[in-house]
């Protein structure tokens, strides 16, 4: 028992110093007006009152929820591709290697590349025009109707390879006797996936789903910063991006901290609902 706390001490020290204490500071400052330099003044719930009436914030929340609804797609694509690679379809080694390529690029590089590729005169639109589909050409990241869906697809591109690796690792831990026995019993196609693969991978799928949800709320800053800046208008504004703008562009540190507190509650709420849904309330 002493060992347990000894082993946990380094992690606890790091988390307290770099996570809990700053977060507590942010919570306190969300009740203040503060420019980050001069001493903060206590203003009670004024920041939260402003939050409730802030259209930009609600637009950002809406966009964040759209991203959460895309998590099953991000996860599903990875799962299907991992299954196909696991079945050793022709060329599976090549697919496994190339699918991982985006994972070694930083979001900044991915964003810069796709900004160039998705331009009005970029290769995607040129391809469409060559294929006689010029009517479908768009300035993908600069039109309000296409910006968010395009962002979703770029994120998919950036993250699906890591998902494939995670699921392959999970699949390799499933005893091959189980898979063979199921095959001998005649489990094929959808039945095989639904009753053998998904239950065997349940914990991996849960882990990756929670990871993606948290990540969609807290780690997309670089994509938005490089590709759209939250625009056009507020079409791709996310709460974490608004937080950055308020804190580091407008010096509204107090309001930014209120956004951070709201974001924290939002992620926590969504994750708790998600865990409840996934475990069916059984553990």
């Amino acid at each position, binding site marked *: *028992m002493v*060992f*347990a*706390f000894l*082993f*946990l001490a*380094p*992690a606890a020290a*790091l*988390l307290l110093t*770099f*996570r*809990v*204490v*700053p*977060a507590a*500071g*942010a919570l306190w*400052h969300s009740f203040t007006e503060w420019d*980050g330099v001069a001493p903060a003044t206590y203003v009670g719930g004024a920041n939260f009152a402003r939050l409730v009436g802030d259209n930009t914030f609600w637009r950002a929340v809406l966009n964040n929820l759209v991203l959460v609804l895309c998590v099953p797609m991000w996860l599903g694509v990875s799962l299907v*591709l991992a299954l*196909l690679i696991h079945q050793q*379809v*022709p*060329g599976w080694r090549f*697919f496994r290697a*190339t*699918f991982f*390529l*985006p994972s070694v*690029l930083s979001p900044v*590089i*991915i964003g810069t*590349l*796709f900004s*160039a*590729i998705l331009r009005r*005169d970029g*290769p995607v639109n*040129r391809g469409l025009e060559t294929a006689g589909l010029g009517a479908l050409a768009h300035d993908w990241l600069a039109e309000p109707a296409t910006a968010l869906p395009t962002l979703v697809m770029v994120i998919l*591109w950036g993250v699906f*390879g890591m998902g494939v690796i995670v699921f392959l690792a999970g699949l390799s831990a499933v005893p091959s006797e189980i898979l063979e026995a199921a095959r001998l019993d005649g489990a094929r196609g959808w039945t095989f996936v639904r009753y053998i693969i998904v239950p065997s991978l349940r914990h991996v799928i849960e882990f990756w789903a929670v990871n993606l949800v*948290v990540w969609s*709320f*807290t780690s997309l*800053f670089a994509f938005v910063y490089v590709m759209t800046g939250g625009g056009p208008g507020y079409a791709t504004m996310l*709460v*974490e991006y608004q*937080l*950055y703008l308020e*804190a580091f562009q407008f010096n509204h*540190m107090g309001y*930014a*901290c209120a956004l*951070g507190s709201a*974001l*924290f509650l939002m*992620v*926590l709420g969504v*994750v708790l609902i998600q865990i409840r849904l996934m475990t069916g309330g059984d553990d």
Partner: protein
Amino acid sequence: MRRLARLAMVAALGAISASTIYPLVFMLLSALKSKREYLLNRYGLPHEPTLVHFANAWTYGDMGQYLANSAIVVSAGVLLSWVVCGLAAYALSHLRFPGRRAVFLAILGTMVIAPQVIIIHCT
């Protein structure tokens, strides 16, 4: 029919591979073009490939310093993670102690804090 479906599937996987390779090829080809050629011939093969951008990145862009910085941050980060996370994971998965689940949930809870919030109070 089965053959055809299989062919279609491999073709689809190939298309995904192409989508992951193309941006890297685009990056490499663009790096080999002069500024003028990039504007005139953005998507073709470079006609007069040049390595001048790599030289510039190294001398004026201070790439060496940045690579060294990355190497320091990554190696220290990986080493620390191994030790710190390994110890904590062992305690949580193999040792029995009161409050185990609470500690685990608290650690998970710290994951949902947006990095921007942390940055505000670390500057």
